[in-house]
């Protein structure tokens, strides 16, 4: 198993792929206002890996959603590859995600009406790239699903669904991949090869990786580990020295 992924020098020279400044997220208003994130600052270089850990309700998933432009911050700024996400329309954000971002979710989030192959092809089809079926078949082969191309998500096990999700996340070679508890729904035996694949693809594609996890073992594989509590960053450590 590889240790923490590290080729961030190139990224540092190119500028951060993700930059978060003074990020704040509140829900409700007046007396019923609830602040779930406050004053978050964060930078991530291209190819770098970062794990976000912390107890439930500490704001990990909210931070990931804001970084990926899935939700609107109450204050602060998120720059993806130099683009201020909050300045973009929803469609422009969607286009930015399609170009730069990959996702892996705890509950896989495959489209149930599409086969494994079709699910993987969606990011390419959305950017108008046709004729990439071979690439999709190759990457599915890479994750060990060459014989499951025509299966629907409900016909696949949890581990297989997550491998399809991995293939979908990497098919368009994103600059950054957000993974929300990628092994949260899987047992240890199924998780191990998924984690290996995640970091292997990260290395091969030079993709920056943001992992939200409760699993210290998984977090230890990232170069940086950010610990969150009550909506703020409590600590930040490097090289698995948690």
């Amino acid at each position, binding site marked *: 198993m590889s240790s923490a992924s590290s080729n961030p020098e190139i990224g540092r020279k190119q500028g951060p792929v993700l930059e978060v400044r003074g990020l704040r997220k509140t829900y409700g208003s007046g007396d019923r206002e609830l602040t779930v994130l406050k004053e978050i600052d964060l930078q991530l270089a291209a190819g770098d890996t970062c794990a976000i850990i912390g107890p439930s309700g500490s704001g990990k998933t909210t931070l990931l959603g804001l970084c990926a432009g899935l939700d609107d911050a109450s204050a602060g700024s998120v720059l993806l590859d130099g683009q201020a996400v909050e300045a973009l329309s929803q469609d*422009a954000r969607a286009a930015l*995600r399609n170009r730069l971002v990959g996702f892996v979710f705890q509950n896989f989030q495959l489209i149930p009406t599409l086969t494994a192959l079709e699910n993987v092809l969606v990011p390419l089809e959305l950017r*108008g790239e046709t004729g990439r079926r071979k690439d999709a078949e190759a990457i599915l082969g890479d994750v060990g699903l060459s014989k499951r191309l025509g299966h629907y998500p409900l016909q696949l096990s949890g581990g297989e669904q997550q491998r399809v999700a991995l293939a979908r996340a990497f098919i368009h070679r994103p600059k950054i991949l957000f993974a929300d508890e990628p092994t949260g729904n899987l047992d240890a035996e199924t998780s191990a090869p998924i984690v290996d694949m995640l970091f292997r693809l990260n290395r091969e594609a030079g993709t920056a990786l943001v992992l939200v996890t409760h699993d210290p073992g998984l977090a230890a594989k990232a170069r940086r580990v950010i610990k969150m509590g009550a909506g703020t960053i409590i600590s930040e450590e490097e090289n698995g020295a948690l």
Partner: protein
Amino acid sequence: MAHSEMNSALPRNPIAALLHPWTWRMAWRDSRSQRARLVIFSLAIVAGVAALVSIHSLKESVQQGINTQAKSLLGSDLMVSSREPIRDEDAAKLNRYATRSSRETSLSSMMFFPSTNGARLVQVRAIDGAFPFYGKVKTEPAGAWQKIQQEKGVLLEPALLDQFRVKVGDTVKLGSAELPILGVVTDPAPQSSRFSGFAPEVYLGRNQLEATGLMGVASMSTHLMQLKLPAGTDAVALKKKLQEDFADAPWRLETPEDRQQNLGDALDNFQRFLAIIALAALVLGAIGVAGAVHAHINKRVPVIAILRCLGCPGNVAFGIYLIQAAVLGLIGALLGAAVGIGLQVSVLTFFAGDLPFEIPIAPQWGVVLQTTAAGFGVCCGFALIPLLKIRRISPAATLRGGAMLAGRNWLAATPVYLLLAGLLVLLSIPGDSNWKRALAMVAGLAGAFLVLLLVAKCLTWLSRKLVRPSWPYLLRQGISNLHRPHNQTVLFLLSLGLGTFLLVTILLTGNLLKGKLSVSQLAESPNLYLIDVQPDQEPGVREVVKNQGLPVLESAPMVTMRIASIRGIPVQDLLKEKKVPRWLARREFRSTFRTELNSTETLMDGEWKTQRDGADAPAPVSLEEGIAKDLGVKVGDSITMDVQGVPIETQVTSIRQVDWSKFNLNFFMVFTPDVLADAPGFHVVTTKAPDAAASGNLQRELVRGFPNVTAIDLAVVLETIRKIVDGISQVISVLAGFTLLAAIPILTGTFLNGRDLRVRESVLLRTLGASARQVRIILLIEYAALGFLSAVTGLALAVGANAVLATRVFKASPWPDFWILAAAFAVTTGLSILGGILLGRGVNKTSPLEILRSGV
């Protein structure tokens, strides 16, 4: 920042997004696991469009039937009538426009019955040609109508045979000619006007008139020329042209449209009812579609969130589901059109024998095309309401489960609602020529929508406030479902409440219309008019009528008069300036005096006066609204009447609407008794004879004691009208039944919307240990509460709408039929409860693991 560089290849422009192949491919792929549900959505459209197509097709068929019926009431496409003989050169000119023509001369004359030594004033109708061109004259023996064109002889009304105890084959004397009775007329030839004569009709060939010698002495003959025009000729336009071309000819021209208007309130009301029913069917279908699409989109929220997360533009996501809705809508609309045609043809075939109209049993293709397109358009329009919410689905829904469609953004949705309202108004106008009424109907719908929304919001608020921890758990759970997040209270009340409102309004309106048209009401109309009853004879005539066992229905004094001037301007001057129609200025009005309005009159304007305000004050007169319009007068205007040489200054004090369809004694002008009591005149007494024999007996008795009294028998005319209104009444029942079809999509949509969420919740409860009975009771309480409130609100709105329609449109009693309300309440609440029970059964049959794993 160069946004264009970040654009994905999929277009953001809504039209381009809609046309992009990937949008279509994804629409197809996305439908894979949803096809059963989408078929239900499609069925919703099938039902809506089927109802719409069948109602409009039937409306068109019935309209054609009515047009044909109106033609058969006139007997031709255009009738020219004149007090002076129509010159041969003019007749030749008229013939150029016609494919066939017929001429008639009619006059009043005494007819002698030598066998019984009796005599009677009759209306002689001497006809040539193959008149009538529409409809049939029925005679006994059959074929006698054609016989009078070839043989010497006459046809009589049955009552005359009874009255003078003569039979077919006996001889009568008309003028100087002795003519055999060739038969009796059971269904008469169309008359030149409703009361064309004050005497029984006698028919003979026009070529025999000369032999009677009547034309030489009769100065009061009427000359008619009936034209059958080539197919497709616009009779109304030709009438206008002839009026211009023959401006100096003293002719009156009449088309079937004029005759149709004369059928009275019955047809007007029928047309208005059709307009309401068609709009209701359209809206019912559309609400069902909106509900079904909402349910579908709600289930697709996670997929849409994933697509948005992966970079799918909002318009492409919107396009995927718009395509699904449009394609399925189109298939549904086409299937609906086929079902609608089937229904229309089946109903016409089934009722063909019972209807007095000759209705063409064939699809109305033009109507089918129009209504299918309109139904498809409106359904797609209503589908936009949930579809537009797709753009508001956040990609963040991928991070947290259980995301559903966001609530209404009223401000953003306002243009859509306005567009739909505009579309409905546009579609309503062809159904009802009065655009204000069409606008009012759509406004009424919008009002009902807002009331239901308000009630739903109140119920949500109330259920939140009312529920107490001390309540039994199941009751608490059932009621709390009404206000919890993603509750279905608003959607349920809007769809089921609006559906109940529309359907019950249709049923109530149909019922009141049928009541208004009922044969029993017409049965109370008089069918025998006794005229020329001198004031001192009136008690005696009443006595004779009563002695025959017949009722005296009405007795009214009648005074003849002419108009001398209007607002001080002599009528001759008004005539020169063409400010009043010629016939009106020359008309001899038969007016009455009384102190009360009768049952067929409604005061429209001014005040009903019972006496003159003072000795020097002008005489108060109440005008019928049509005549007031023709004269161009309103309340307060002065009219000088010439009452048999004596000028009387009058002032219009009120305007009345008169329902002429009832055949009661009605008058254009009604005075107060103090004005006309001493004027020379006579009485008209009306009664109703059950059959021709009773009518004959009464007329015989009257001749003995009161030889000057003339009896006018309207039994045959009334029977024709009775057949027409009876037919209309039956068609109304069928059409009201059709709208029930359109309720199917509403029910489907409503239950689909709540189903998924309730199934998941109920399965969780089952997983946590709730018994099947407990789950059923919770669902039962929720659906009973929703059904009860939908029914009560819908019924309250329907009662209000019925009252407005009854008083403002149909001029009928606003009181609804209690049994319709009771049945509608039971059905609405019952169906809602049934839905809850079925859902409960579904939950108990579904494996919890299946639900929990599929993440419904």
